């Protein structure tokens, strides 16, 4: 799997390159600024772009802007955005085109290599990877309005993991339950929230995220 990487801090860039290579990713380019990233994304054909939000020269949200622009030019181009902080506002912008293939994670998540690599693969395959902090922000805002659709605590847990973009198998492993019961919880959740049922994993995730982000 071919990766374009943009990260301005040398240590982190180097570490990411080494980690990705250790998991058999091919690094097409590892760049350190916005213009370089734009050029790399235009000239190369990566399976995924892993991008830091804040890049030189402006040190504002250049990475995010480059990634969004590249996705406009090539709809569905998988992009995993990394940041020192997560904002629901940015998550909303990344998800706005409804195409999937989007990830938004705190940089801390690279500490857990297995989970991080899992997220990269998921996004590259057109799935979603949302940082748990984004999801808990969404949920804490919701919690005040009303308990979400009368979900049981277990269903809520399942929904939280689902919103992060995890597959049924991964959710089952994390909660130590069978995949069958995950599927049952999932259909309950969709029934209670009044969301259209879909077999497509990614559609499901996007539906849940959209539900959570909806202004009450």
């Amino acid at each position, binding site marked *: 799997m071919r990766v374009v990487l943009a990260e301005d801090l040398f240590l982190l860039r180097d570490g990411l390159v080494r980690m990705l290579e250790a998991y058999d990713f091919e690094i097409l380019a590892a760049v350190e600024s916005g213009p370089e990233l734009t050029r790399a994304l235009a000239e190369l054909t990566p399976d995924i772009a892993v991008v830091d939000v804040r890049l030189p020269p402006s040190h*504002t*949200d250049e990475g995010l802007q480059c990634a969004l622009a590249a996705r406009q030019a090539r709809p569905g181009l998988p992009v995993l955005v990394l940041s*020192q902080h997560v*904002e*629901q506002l940015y998550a909303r912008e990344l998800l706005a085109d409804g195409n999937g293939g989007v990830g938004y994670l705190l940089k801390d998540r690279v500490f857990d290599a297995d989970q991080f690599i899992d997220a990269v693969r998921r996004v590259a395959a057109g799935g979603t990877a949302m940082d748990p902090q984004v999801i808990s922000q969404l949920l*804490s*805002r919701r919690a005040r309005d009303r308990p979400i659709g009368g979900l049981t605590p277990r269903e809520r847990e399942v929904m939280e993991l689902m919103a992060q973009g995890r597959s049924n198998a991964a959710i089952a492993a994390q909660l130590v339950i069978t995949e069958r019961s995950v599927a049952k919880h999932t259909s309950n959740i969709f029934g209670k929230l009044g969301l259209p049922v879909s077999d497509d994993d990614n559609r499901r995730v996007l539906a849940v995220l959209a539900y959570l982000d909806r202004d009450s």
Partner: protein
Amino acid sequence: MDGWKIRRSLSAIWRGLALSFVTLVGSITLFVLTVVSIALIPLGVGVLTTPALVAAVRKHANQRRLLAATWSDVRIAVPYRPFPPDVRGGITGQVERCTLLLKDPATWRDLQWLLIDMTVGSVIALLTFALNVYALEGFVLAAGLWRVFRNEPYWYGFVPVDSQLTGLAAAALGLVLLALGLRFASDLLRLHFLLARPLLAPTHGEALALRIERLTESRHDAVDTSAAELRRIERDLHDGAQARLVAMGMDLGTVEALIEKDPARAKALIGQARQSSAEALTELRDLVRGIHPPVLAERGLGDAVKALALRLPVPAEVSVELTGRAAAPVESAAYFAVSEALTNVVKHAGADRIWVDLSYGEGMLRIAVTDDGGGGAVIGKGSGLSGLERRLGTFDGILAVSSPAGGPTMVTMEIPCELS
């Protein structure tokens, strides 16, 4: 003249009449009483009465400043020096207050203004009304009143009225006067205020002195606040990230010693060290958010406030009409001011909904935070709002709060700045 202009002239006429009444009754009374009171100071009685009378004069003058701004858009700044905070009580305090008031040049200029106000000022104010009434007299003469003066001509303006014909001439003159009176009523009113301005407004020196006083105060506040902020940051780093890094170092040292003897425990300790590093990161992230929020650096004020609103437990609508970005310190002050205002709402107002409006116009960044909560918010000692006022003061910004009991509450902030 269209309807709006006529209505404006008519209101100017009534205002002029009201003003002339206020100037004749208020200004004359206050002038006489104050002069007598000051004259009685050597006898001792004046010391007791003067401060109260000067206060009344100032109230009278402030009311005129207010009217000038609301009626004729003539802005007159307030020149009075504030009392020092340590004025004593009792008789000594009274003497001290009296001396301070008499030393304030604005007191003497107010007296001069009273003198002008009750003479020229009242004449001009009355003129707005009198001119039009006199014009109406011309019509009354033409309508039949001329008959009374058949033997002895009555001088209406420059027309000797003694017949129907001359009565009609008077009506014609009255028509001209009425046109003039209506046309210039609001200008006359404005003239009244413009006449008052040189004496009511602070002199250049006074204005500078007041400005210096405000600057000194806001500089003190700014220095105090930033020192307190630095102390807080130091404490947070010391107790937070720094401590975690120490723990991590210790864990890693132990790992080094254990790795061959007891690999299982070493592995557990590595996990612990990783946990510490994650916690250190979280703490640093929160700290950074408190110093300069990353979204503010990345996106500017509008999006930073939007991101802030998304984190609130109360639904908030944010509307932003900014054409550029303000200087970084202004943005930061505005952001934290909004943040403080929102925290206040969430904590105290019991609101179901919040509206935040950001806009820019006439060199002012305007921010309004409105909520549908219980109201009753005041700017006072120890309330979050006075902290807000101090924060804005450093940038010459101002804060206004409208919060009737029962709500809604609207907190408005204005900061002068340029957008780039």
